């Protein structure tokens, strides 16, 4: 597999370890996964593949007919493999940017900037992990499941979706050794009271040292409540509208609790992964 040279190889400032690069990647495949999601697989240069679970890229999306996406679109990493030189994104077509991404065909090029932001941490005290996410949020947590397996942690993945067949990445989580529980709207198992009861039972059995989640306000509020009640820490990957993705423009701030204060942090730079207890839903 050919490695594609980056668009511009310029050394970072003295004393700075290159964290990210703007590079040209080549599309290997871009296929529908189910009715809602598509999987984009890229051949990417080594300099953008030193990734951590929870980090993201800024993609310069192709311009679909009749639309004009201008800014890059942030996209969490679904998979990365430095050895194979591959980078993957799982996305749902939601706007001009993702409609542009959907036009990519094998052999096309895509300008990528990354990896960006701070990824998930996995302190030694967190041996029994519980991941709770819904929809495309599950894509963000996929690399985390691999990390959990590599570090020998036990992982329970609660995958929420509108219907069972739309639950993302179930097989992938299983392949990383996770116990997968699918909850969905059709039988009400995805509703907060049902989920809470499910998680409480696991906590009672001593099976939860930490939570990981992504995006959803409803899940965040629920996990904050459970975390506070039982003293269980955790991390959340959050979203916000971005321009630069590097921290320069300060567009993507969100409020966070810091002691008795509420402070703004940049999702692209201090995040996108934050402590569940400090996040504000």
């Amino acid at each position, binding site marked *: 597999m050919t490695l594609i040279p980056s*668009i*511009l190889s*310029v*050394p*970072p*400032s*003295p004393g*700075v370890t*290159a*964290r*990210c*690069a*703007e590079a040209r990647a080549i599309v290997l495949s871009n296929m529908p996964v189910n009715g809602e999601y598509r999987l984009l697989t890229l051949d990417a240069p080594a300099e953008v593949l030193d990734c951590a679970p929870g980090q993201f890229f800024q993609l*310069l999306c192709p311009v679909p007919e009749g639309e*004009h*996406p*201008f*800014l*890059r679109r942030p996209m969490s990493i679904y998979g990365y493999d430095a050895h194979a030189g591959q980078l993957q994104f799982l996305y749902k077509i939601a706007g*001009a940017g993702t409609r542009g991404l959907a036009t990519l065909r094998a052999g096309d090029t895509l*300008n990528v*900037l990354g990896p960006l932001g701070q990824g998930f941490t996995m302190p030694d005290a967190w041996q029994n992990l519980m991941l709770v996410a819904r929809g495309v949020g599950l894509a963000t947590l996929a690399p985390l499941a691999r990390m959990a397996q590599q570090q020998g942690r036990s992982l329970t993945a609660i995958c929420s979706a509108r219907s069972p067949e739309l639950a993302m990445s179930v097989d992938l989580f299983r392949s990383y050794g996770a116990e997968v529980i699918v909850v969905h709207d059709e039988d009400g198992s995805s509703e907060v009271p049902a989920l809470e009861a499910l998680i409480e039972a696991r906590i009672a059995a001593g099976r939860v040292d930490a939570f990981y989640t992504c995006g959803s306000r409803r899940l965040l509020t629920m996990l904050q409540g459970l975390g506070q009640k039982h003293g269980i820490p955790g991390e959340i990957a959050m979203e*916000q*509208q*971005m*321009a*630069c993705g*590097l*921290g*320069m*423009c*300060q*567009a*993507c*701030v*969100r409020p966070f609790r810091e002691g008795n204060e509420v402070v*703004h942090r940049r999702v692209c*730079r201090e995040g996108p992964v934050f402590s569940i207890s400090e996040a504000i839903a």
Partner: protein
Amino acid sequence: MSPPDLSVKVGELTFANPIMPASGTFSEDLSDVFDLDVLGAHVLKTIMHGKRAGNPTPRVCDLQGGMLNAIGIPSKGIDDFRDRMLPYWSAYKAPLVVSISAHSMDEFARLAAEVSLPGVAAIEANISCPNIEADGNAFAMRPDTTAEVMRRLRAETDLPLWAKLTPNTGEPVAVAMAAEAEGADAIVTANTALGMSIDVRTRQPRLGNVMGGMSGPAVKPIALRMTYQCAHACRVPVIGCGGIATLDDVLEFLIAGAAAVQVGTATFRSPTVMARLIAELSDWMQEQGVTSLGEIIGSVQIPGGEAA
């Protein structure tokens, strides 16, 4: 043939090349991507005196050929600038330009004095932000308020003082000349153009602040026009800023009379763009046999004579 000389003079300052960032689109974070010492100068995000949280989100939105922003100048204040930012930026060779702003003349003048510190090469006065003493109209909307604020700033600093104009004024030449008359050492044309966008589905403005500044390739002709007008009217140098993303854009502004250029929104799309433009400009000069940018700056050919 010896390598081309990319250096430019902006008043008493000499920059290694004419490419510098536009205020608000640059921070130490970009050092992750390339060596910031390749730049002609470093222009920091506007500092205000006190701590400010900034505007509600969403703070940016996408447009055809550009974007809107209403970030609201979140600022950590003068203490953070003096104690943390100035030592950081002083470690670079590239001259440091500090952008300042305030909502009143007194606060503006005080800030100019406070940032006049060793290690600061020039002050860029962001006089395009709302003046609460004038119903929220930016100082640079009118020649009289421009003159007054520049007079106050000039009295407080011996550093080179740049005035950053707004494209929202109907009289940019009069504003530029007022700034020059009160001691501005350079004119920067220009800040963002006030705009708005509505999500037709929700009927809500796409910015938390309702209105915001438009930037990107779509505003380039406006900034280029102002650069041309001001370069012809003023004796002090003009720095072009607005929608610059390609080598041809840089050349356009230089030909129109800009002594240097600022690159802003383009960095959001391609963070390596400034380093690339410097390399491309050097290659272009070599190919064209241009040994100094003095041959290019202000070389616009108006058929039938000058028109301004």
